[in-house]
C-alpha cells in the first residue's frame, strides 16, 4: 500500500503544481490545498503505514501493547494540518483582497510592482 500511496501522492503533487502554475488565483488555491494534503500524506507515508493499531497505551500498561503505528509523523502531520489551514485562510483572504482592490484574479495582471514586458 505504501508504494501505491507514493504513486498517488506523485499524481496529487503533479496536479497541484499544474494548478498553481495556471496563473489563475482561484486555481492556485486549489493547487495549494492539494499540495498541502500531498505533503501531509508524504510525511505520514514516510513514517510507514500500520493498520489497526493506533499509538495509544492501554490502561494498566506502561507502554503500547505490541507494535503500534508510528506516533511521531502523526504529531507532525497534526500540527501541519492546522498550520496548512491557517495558510489556506490567509491565501484565500489575500486573493479576495486582490480581487477587490485590483479587479483581477489573474496573477500576470497583478503587475503593480513589476515592469511592463517590453520596457527595460
Amino acid at each position, binding site marked *: 500500500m505504501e508504494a501505491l500511496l507514493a504513486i498517488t501522492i506523485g499524481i496529487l503533487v503533479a496536479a497541484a503544481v499544474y494548478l498553481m502554475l495556471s496563473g489563475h488565483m482561484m486555481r492556485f488555491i486549489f493547487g495549494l490545498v492539494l499540495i498541502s494534503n500531498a505533503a501531509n500524506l508524504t510525511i505520514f507515508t514516510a513514517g510507514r503505514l500500520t493498520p489497526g493499531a*493506533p499509538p*495509544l497505551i492501554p490502561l494498566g500498561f506502561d507502554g503500547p501493547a505490541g507494535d503500534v503505528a508510528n506516533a511521531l509523523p502523526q504529531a507532525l502531520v*497534526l*500540527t501541519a494540518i*492546522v498550520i496548512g*489551514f*491557517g495558510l489556506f*485562510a490567509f491565501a484565500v*483572504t489575500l486573493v*479576495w483582497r486582490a480581487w477587490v482592490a485590483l479587479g483581477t484574479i489573474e496573477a500576470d495582471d497583478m503587475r503593480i510592482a513589476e515592469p511592463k514586458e517590453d520596457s527595460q
Partner: protein
Amino acid sequence: MNSIILIAGTRYLSALLILFSIYALLRGHNEPGGGFIGGLIGSTGFILYAIACGTDQARRALRARPETVAMIGLAIALGAGLSAALFGDVFFTGQWLFLGATETEKGLPVSTVLAFDVGVYMAVFGSILGLVFAMEEEI
C-alpha cells in the same frame, strides 16, 4: 438563513459541540482528542451559531473578542511552558501535581501540560473564530 427550525436546532447543537469540544480537550492526553481537535470542534460550534443567528449574536454570546481569546490562549501556553523555570526545570518541562493522591489511588492529575493544551485550544478556537467572523462581516 431565517429558518426558525435551524435557529432553534442550532442553539442546542452549538451548545453540544462546545461541551464536546471541552470533553475532547480534557480526555486528549489519554484518548484521541486534545487542544487542536477541541479548538476546531469548539469553533465549529460557534460558526454554526453565527451562520444561523448572525455574527452579532454569536459575538455577544462569546462575550470576549475571539482575537483576545486567541492571544490569551497563546499567553497561557507560553506561561505554562515558562513556569517550568519556577520549579527549576528547563522551559517546557511538564510539571505535575496529583490532588488527593494516596498509596493506592493516583488522585486527580493537574499539570502545566494540561494548561498548555488549554492554551492551544483557546489559540486555535480564537484564531479560527476571529477569521470566520471577520469574513462573515466583511465579505
